[in-house]
């Protein structure tokens, strides 16, 4: 879990079964373990109304465990971007009583929440649980480019190349942390790079 910090930084909880008619899960990698833990607490038949969208990532693990929950729909996507149209269509066709559960990396939770916000779902009604990497999705405030999987402080913008201070300031709308040039005043000042978001 991430250390306590500023108020705009998202706070994640632990998934738990919610009353509802349909249950939509979006998870990546070790996020699958959060779904398994929820399943252990869920009433019988809970997954009969469940749809799981899962992005296993490079390890390719946990697929069988999720399939064993027998959700009415299961989708394995090669990346979040490729699963996004399916998620958007599901949200667009959803009715009252849909509950949304997001688990895994911050980038996955943030981007799935972004799609949910655009579909009119209140962020406080969404269950989230952070599992796995602490890597951040960072928006460069200068060129507006998004750099994925940032693990270092400072980090180099993968678009404009500026050296960025990765702030805790977070935008749900952009699903990104803010990156601001760390040596804007004097480019010759290069602070040491540390890997802190692993």
């Amino acid at each position, binding site marked *: 879990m991430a250390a306590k910090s*500023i108020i705009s930084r998202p706070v994640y909880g632990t998934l738990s079964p919610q009353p509802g008619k349909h249950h939509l899960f979006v998870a990546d990698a070790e996020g699958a373990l959060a779904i398994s833990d929820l399943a252990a607490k869920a009433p019988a038949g809970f997954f009969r109304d469940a749809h799981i969208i899962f992005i296993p990532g490079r390890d390719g693990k946990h697929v069988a465990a999720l399939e064993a929950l027998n959700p009415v729909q299961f989708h394995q996507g090669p990346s979040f971007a490729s699963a996004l149209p399916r998620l958007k269509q599901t949200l667009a066709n959803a009715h009252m009583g849909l509950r949304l559960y997001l688990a895994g990396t911050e980038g996955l939770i943030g981007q799935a929440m972004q799609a949910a916000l655009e579909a009119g779902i209140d962020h406080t009604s969404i269950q989230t649980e952070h599992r796995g990497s602490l890597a951040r999705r960072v928006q460069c*405030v*200068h060129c507006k480019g998004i750099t994925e999987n940032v693990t270092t402080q400072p980090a180099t913008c993968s678009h404009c190349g500026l050296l960025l201070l990765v702030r805790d300031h977070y935008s*749900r*709308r*952009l699903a990104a942390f803010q990156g601001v040039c760390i040596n*804007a*005043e*004097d480019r010759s000042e290069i602070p040491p790079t540390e890997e802190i978001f692993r």
Partner: protein
Amino acid sequence: MGITFRKETFRDDFTFRNSPEHIRRFPFPFHEDSYMYAVNIEPHVVGPKGSVLENLIDVDEHYVAEMQDRALVLAEDPLRCQSLPHMTLAGWDLLELLMEQQALGYPEHFTLARDGDRWRWINRPLGIDDTFTFGDVSTLPYGPMEYITRQSQGDFCILDQRDGNLWMDAGMVTTQADWSLDFDIGMNFFEWHAPVPLAHEKGIFTRALKFLTNIQQGKPARRLNWTMTINPRLDTSPENYHKWGPDRTTVTPENVGEKVHLRVELQSFWRLPRSNGIVFPIRCYLIKMDELVTQPKWARRLHRVIRDLPEELANYKGLTRYRPTLVEWLSKLDDGSPTSPGFGPD
């Protein structure tokens, strides 16, 4: 007679100046010889003639040049002006407020004529004469918020009120002190203030939110905030920080008076009648040290404030690099004699 609008720039050759009358009316933000955060909110009522509070929406000699600078910023980066889809009605509310206030305060420069929903707006300094239908977006060249805030000094944030909170859901922000509308749009009051040090722990934002959500129509409120800027640059956005940041390394004992500027924000808060939103104009006033120290009381007081400012605040305001040079320069104008209470010059 009216205002004589200056031809000047806030970039490149930086020809911005205040006339002697405008130096005297500068909203100096320190009422005592030290500074710490406080919920310094008071009713926004009309103040003395000749002050920036003579009218509730102030128009001054920098009006035309500031509007030209805004147009340059927007041409470069249109995301400085954004309005989420549910905020259009609040934009009309703001258009009405600013047209009414500017026409009321400066009839020689602005005229608003209304015939039902058919409105005619004449803005003489900018050479605008438009007739449009109030509430019909297709009759204006921009959305209502963008249209009127391209003709009004200061940044404008429109806050939606719901769930006991205020949400930054629309704004025109081109003269900001280092915060990004594009990043913060859609955030609630606590979230967009998240990076501010010390104030959360002091409960400042909880109290401020309580006050703001209770603001009533026709009873606006105001507060002052301040920072410092090197060169009279209006666009000190984070977007362009890598362009203006190096200015902070250019301060020397010889150029403090010309380069270092006190930047004061007159923030006001108004309930909007149709949308129930709050509009939050952030009006920026700049004054260079050479101009400020023509008032000996302000020179003495500013020296003491900057010298004694807590380190965290100095860092947050971006003063750290040039503070010693500035304090040394100001110290020569401080003979240690007492300063009179209150903001105004002696």
